[in-house]
């Protein structure tokens, strides 16, 4: 166990380093640059602006400089929103995304897991296809349709919740619901598939033959193994969810982290884009370590390997 964690730690650091390096050079290859505006800025002013951020140096010097600062915990300044550091922006936006992501995931799990398990247990009955069809809605209606629909229906028509913003609890409901519905559908479908796979195995038949109750078969014997593919999906999904969703944040005007992945890329805000990428990568890599451990725990036949 310790050895596993130790090995994974080193692997993770190497992975992170590779991600930073690749991202840095991808960004260098992108057209345009920071300080672009519709109105032309005379070349000497542009040079001055670049020099103020050290962006006039050769790319390799910028790269080593960035890495050096990163080791010191300095993510740099954004080039688009001057006066803010990248850490401040992430530090302000992440708790919001985390909250939204956790609320959404809680909703997705409370809805998706039971639906998937029941559907698998009652395969090809009304209890199977009805909830599964409803859950399909979460996939068929893109978030940019579901979001405004919920805002119009629950927000403006029924006057239950605020249609956008992030100030009080009433603002939290609709974005979490929109985000959760999408993932609930995924989870329900994958749970159903995973459970069906397990329920046809020998040991389940043996258990049933021995007269173990159906609930016990489902929960005690099958669930752990049946959820293996769901867990594999949940790791990256969780990392994605807590780092925010561009579309949901945009529709409900949530000041989360997700928007920066898109807007920083489009604004050529190099430091901010690198910052959120490094942050996301760290979360993702840790989530994957957790998932590997969970899978080993749920399915003892899979050994932890480094």
């Amino acid at each position, binding site marked *: 166990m310790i050895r596993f964690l130790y090995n994974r730690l080193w692997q993770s650091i190497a992975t992170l380093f590779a991600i930073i390096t690749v991202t840095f050079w991808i960004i260098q290859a992108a057209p345009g640059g920071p300080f672009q505006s519709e109105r032309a800025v005379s070349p000497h002013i542009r040079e001055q602006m*670049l020099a103020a951020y050290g962006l006039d140096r050769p790319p390799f010097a910028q790269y080593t400089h960035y890495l050096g600062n990163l080791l010191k915990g300095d993510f740099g300044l954004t080039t688009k929103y001057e006066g803010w550091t990248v850490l401040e922006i992430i530090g302000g936006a992440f708790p919001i995304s985390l909250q939204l992501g956790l609320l959404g995931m809680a*909703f997705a799990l*409370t809805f998706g897991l039971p639906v998937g398990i029941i559907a698998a247990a009652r395969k090809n009955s009304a209890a199977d296809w009805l909830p599964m069809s409803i859950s399909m809605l979460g996939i068929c209606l893109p978030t940019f349709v579901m979001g405004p629909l919920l805002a119009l229906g629950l927000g403006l028509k029924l006057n*239950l919740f605020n249609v956008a913003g992030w100030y009080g609890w009433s603002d939290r409901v609709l974005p979490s619901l929109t985000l959760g519905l999408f993932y609930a559908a995924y989870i329900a479908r994958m749970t159903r598939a995973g459970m069906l796979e397990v329920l046809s195995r020998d040991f389940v038949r043996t258990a049933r033959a021995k007269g173990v109750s159906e609930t016990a078969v489902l929960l005690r014997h099958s669930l752990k193994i049946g959820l293996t593919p769901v867990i594999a999906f949940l790791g990256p999904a969780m990392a994605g969810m807590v780092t925010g969703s561009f579309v949901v944040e945009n529709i409900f005007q949530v000041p989360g982290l997700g928007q920066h992945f898109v807007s920083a890329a489009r604004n050529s805000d190099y430091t901010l884009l690198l910052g959120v990428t490094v942050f996301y990568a760290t979360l993702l890599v840790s989530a994957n370590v957790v998932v590997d451990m969970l899978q080993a725990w749920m399915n003892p036949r899979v050994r932890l390997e480094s």
Partner: protein
Amino acid sequence: MRFLTALAGLGLILTLLGLTACSRHDSRARKAAREGILLVGNGTEPKSLDPHIASGVTEHHLIITLLEGLTSDHPVEESVVPAAAARWEANDTLDEWTFHLRPEAKWSNGDPVTAQDFVWAYQRLLTPSLGGEYAAMLYLLKGAEAFNKGETTDPQSIGARALDPLTLRLTLVGPTPYFPSMLTHYAWFPVHPPTILAHGKIDTRASRWTHPGNFVGNGPFTLKTWRFKHLIEVVRNPHYWDAATVKLNGIRFLPIDNIPAEERMFRDGQLHLTETVPLDKIEHWRTKQADSYYENPYLAVYFYRINVTHPQLKDPRVRHALSLAIDREAITKNIMKAGQSPATGLVPPVAGYTGPGLVKFDPVEARRLLAEAGYADPSTFPRFDILFNVSESHRTIAEAIQQMWNKNLGLNVGLNSQDWGVYLDAQQRLDFNVSRAAWTADYPDPMTFLDMWTTGNGNNMTGWSRPEFDALIAQARTIRDTSERFTVLKEAESLLLQDMPVIPLYIYVRNYLVSPAVTGWHPKLLDSRPWKHVGLQVDPPSPHTP
């Protein structure tokens, strides 16, 4: 099994209960109105609140609450009123202006506002190592350009001098009758030197002085809260010289970049003022809730740039054919539908200026010109692209024009939508055939739409150059008399339209929503907002219903 079903049911019920517990009762806008706080949708997050770093309209709306220039916009009319300066005079040639500051004007920490603060501010914006984007706006000052380009390092060479603590003398490169109206732009605003120097050097770009608690300004409001991409709140500045006039206790600016969401928030009672209205909802608001709907002229023009270095498009007859084949009326009436007017020239009607009006729709003449240029059979004309940045309205207009050129001229035209950065880059490198563009006036004068087309101007981006045009613009800069100047500028515009390196399409309007609770709201041509004259009434005559 039953246990599981019960679990799922319980989960659902708990969720529903939790959700209803979160529901709300009072509208935010009504609560804020009672507190005298205006809720404003402000488009996007500002790049900066530092007047020497910022650029753009979003920033303008914010900075004018925190800082005040020598002059400011008249609350109702299209003119300027004294602000930090109580009065001013110019010499006969209108190139030397003397401003007398208000002795009672104070910074928000109690310090007096002095002429030296202005001089220091201009020196800061012009300091090369600061890299101020709008430094070029100050090139009107004598010696400013040389200082900004590093040709001299002596700040005394800039034509801004404090004769005494309350008298500021600005020496310009040429006669500028509209100078006072240029001073409402934040590039000309003062800053508080000790505050900036407390948080860095004169040329520190990403300084913390603009953050709440640090910011010291001379405007009607001061900065209370700034949460990134979330909220900026300003509150009444007790040290402001005209604090008695200020009606609001505060303003909350929300950076809402999703237009339909902004409209929903307005209907939901979360905003008093929106930045814009979604295209498809304009008809509804205009007819059903006209008391909240505003549609105001705006000094901006939408046009297409043509790359005149392109082998086929370098022929002016082809460019004219393209322009004549566009039915602008169909675009404004059937697509935009928000009150825009078809362009007859590049310069919108402004300050008494009327253009030559050479732009029109004439498909027969268009076809004739194209044939004359050697394309009697239009299928021999090579395919070219319309470049535009990603946006629903740019795309719709481009699709319509693509069809018009196909129908009226028989040309095969492609569409090329690109991401903002790629689009700007392509335009600057002249790597396009035809490109969508727009220009908003910096100051209410035709010059702001014309001087960009001179040879070598960074905003030209068409490859077009005519020495006669350059000469006319240079000549106009030396003329004092407005009507005489306008005659020369009109001649310049005619010359531009004869060569047609740009195809003007329509003149903008601004559409937005204002809650009936808002009082003292007067739309302005440049969308400047004299916030200090705006107020709120707690019980508006016709209560807002969603």
